[in-house]
C-alpha cells in the first residue's frame, strides 16, 4: 500500500507524525475495538457524541415545530390533449394540427379496433403494448378529444392520472406515499413546495413499460471490480 506516502497531502506531515506518535496507541485501540467490539466500552471512554438510540421513540416531537401553512404539492400535467399533425404549415411556418374530433366527429366508433394491427386506414404505425387493454377503454368513443373512465365518465386528457389510477390502484397508493414516481423540491412542506411527476412522464400510455437505460456515469472506483484485486481498492 502506498497510503502513507502522502507528502504532498495537505496534512501529510501531520499524519506522518501523528501516526509515528500514535501508531502504537492506535493499534492498541483498534485491537481493543476489534476484540471487544462492544461499543459500550468505547462509548464510555470517548464520550463523544450522544447517539440518539431509539429514534422512533424520540422524545423530540413535531409539536416542537410551529404549525406553518404548508406549501403545495404540484403534480405535473400535460399541457393539453393530443392533436394530429397535418403536414401542412401555416403562414408563420408553424405546423397545422387538428383535434381528434376533426375526423372522429363524423366516424362511428369502432370497438373492434383494439391493437395497432387492426388499424389500416389511419394511425398506422402506432406502437401499442399495454396488455390487452383496448383503445376505447381509455379513449372516449363519444368524443375523441377526451378520455373516459370505466363508468363512462368523460375525462380531460390533462387528468390522465385518474385514468391510470383506476386500473393501477396499488401503484397509485404507493405514488401518493412517495414510494413510486419520484419527486422534486422540499421534503418539508413547511419550508417549500414539491413537484411530482405525472404517470405519463415516465410511462407512455400506449407502451407503458419503463424504458431501458444505458449507464453513463461510473466513478473510477475499483471496489468490487471483477478485474481488479480487492486489496487495490481506491489505490491509484
Amino acid at each position, binding site marked *: 500500500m502506498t*497510503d*502513507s*506516502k502522502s507528502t504532498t*497531502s*495537505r*496534512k*501529510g*506531515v*501531520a*499524519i506522518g*507524525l*501523528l*501516526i509515528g506518535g*500514535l*501508531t502504537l*496507541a492506535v493499534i492498541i485501540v*483498534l*485491537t481493543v475495538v*476489534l*476484540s*471487544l*467490539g*462492544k461499543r459500550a466500552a*468505547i462509548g*464510555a*471512554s*470517548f464520550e*463523544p*457524541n450522544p*447517539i*440518539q438510540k431509539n*429514534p*422512533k421513540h*424520540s422524545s*423530540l416531537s413535531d409539536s*416542537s415545530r410551529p404549525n406553518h401553512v404548508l406549501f403545495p404539492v404540484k403534480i405535473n400535467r400535460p399541457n393539453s390533449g393530443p392533436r394530429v399533425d397535418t403536414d401542412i404549415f401555416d403562414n408563420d411556418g408553424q405546423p397545422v394540427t387538428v383535434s381528434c374530433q376533426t375526423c372522429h366527429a363524423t366516424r362511428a366508433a369502432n370497438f373492434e379496433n383494439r391493437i395497432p394491427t387492426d388499424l389500416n386506414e389511419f394511425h398506422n404505425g402506432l406502437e401499442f403494448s399495454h396488455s390487452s387493454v383496448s383503445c376505447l377503454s381509455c379513449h372516449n368513443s363519444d368524443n375523441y378529444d377526451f378520455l373516459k373512465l370505466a363508468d363512462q365518465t368523460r375525462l380531460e386528457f390533462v387528468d390522465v392520472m385518474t385514468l391510470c389510477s383506476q386500473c393501477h390502484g396499488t401503484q397509485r397508493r*404507493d405514488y401518493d*406515499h*412517495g*414510494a*413510486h414516481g*419520484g*419527486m422534486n423540491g*422540499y*421534503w*418539508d412542506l413547511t*419550508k*417549500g413546495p414539491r413537484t411530482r411527476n405525472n404517470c405519463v412522464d415516465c410511462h407512455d400510455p400506449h407502451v407503458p413499460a*419503463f424504458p431501458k*437505460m*444505458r449507464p*453513463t*456515469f*461510473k*466513478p*473510477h472506483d475499483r*471496489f*468490487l471490480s471483477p478485474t481488479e484485486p480487492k486489496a487495490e*481498492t*481506491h489505490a491509484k
Partner: protein
Amino acid sequence: MPSNEPHVPPATNKASASLPIIGQPSTRRTALKGAALTLGLAAFGKAIWPMISIPENVSLDEFLQQHYKELSADDKQKVFARLATETKEKYGAKVTINDQRPIPGVKFAYAINLSKCNGNGKCMEACNIENNHHRGVDQSYIRVLEMTKGSMEMEHGSTTYTHDVPQDDKFYMPVQCQQCDNPPCVTVCPVEATWKEEDGIVVVDYNWCIGCRYCEAACPYHARRFNWEQPEIAAEEVNPNQGYLSNRIRPQGTMEKCHFCLHRTREGRLPACLEACPTGARVFGNINDPDSDINWILKNKRVFVLKEELGTEPSFFYFFDS
C-alpha cells in the same frame, strides 16, 4: 514504527475479508479493561495532536483551528470566511459556506425501492456534481451495485457493468452511508473528527480529520471515501451553496462520506440523489413525523437493512414492491 510503514494495521486492512467490528461477545471484565485503556489513549491522542509541528502547506489559522464542536458562532464565521477565500484562491469560484444545523425534532431516514431502481447511475452523477467531488476520478458517495437475484451480499455485487439496464436476472442496489445509529466509523476515529448529530446524520470535520482511514476500514458498507488527491473542479462547476460539514471542497488527505446532503435537507429540501433518480426509487424524510412518506414505507412495505446482524442500526432502508 517509522511513519513510512503502512499505517493501517493488518487486522483492518481492506484485504481482510470481514470487518468484525461489532457484534462479538466480550465479557464485562474485558469490556471494562478496554474502557480504561481507550480512555487513556484518547486523552493521549488529544494531548499530542496540537504539539505536532505545522506542515508547510497548512496555514497557521487552519492549524490552530479548533474542533468544529468547540467553535463559537464568531469563530465559525471566521473559519467559514477563510475557507471561502481559500476556495476563491484555489478554484476561482465564489462560494458561501454555511453551518446548517439539525432541525429540532427531525430524524432523517432514507429508503430505496429496489423494484424500481434500474441501476442507471444518475444518483451517483448528481452526488458528484452537488457535493463538489473530485472530477478526475468521478468521485461519488454512492455505489450502485448490480446484484444477482437471490443474493443480498453487497460484496458479490458489481459496479463496473456498462450494458443496458435493467438486466432480467439482476437487481440494482445503491449503497451509500447508512447513517447508522450505532456507527462503527465514529467509534474508531482516534481524534473524534466524525460524530453523529441529532438528526441522525454522521458528519466529518474535514479540518480535524487526520486521514488515518480507520473509519474507512470500520465501515461495513464501504461507504467512506478518502481524498487521495486535491479535488479538481472547474470554477464554473463548483456548487457555491456549501456546508461546512457537508459539500464544501474537501482538503486532500481527508475522509468523507454521504451526509444526506445536509446543506439541502436541513433547509427542508430533498437530497440531490433523490431528485436525480429517473425511476423514482428513492424516498427521504423525517421518521419522527408520523405522516411522512418514509414512515408510511416503514409501516407498509417489508423493509430491510443491510447487514442487520452487525447491529449498526442503519437509518437507511431497502424494500421491494410485493
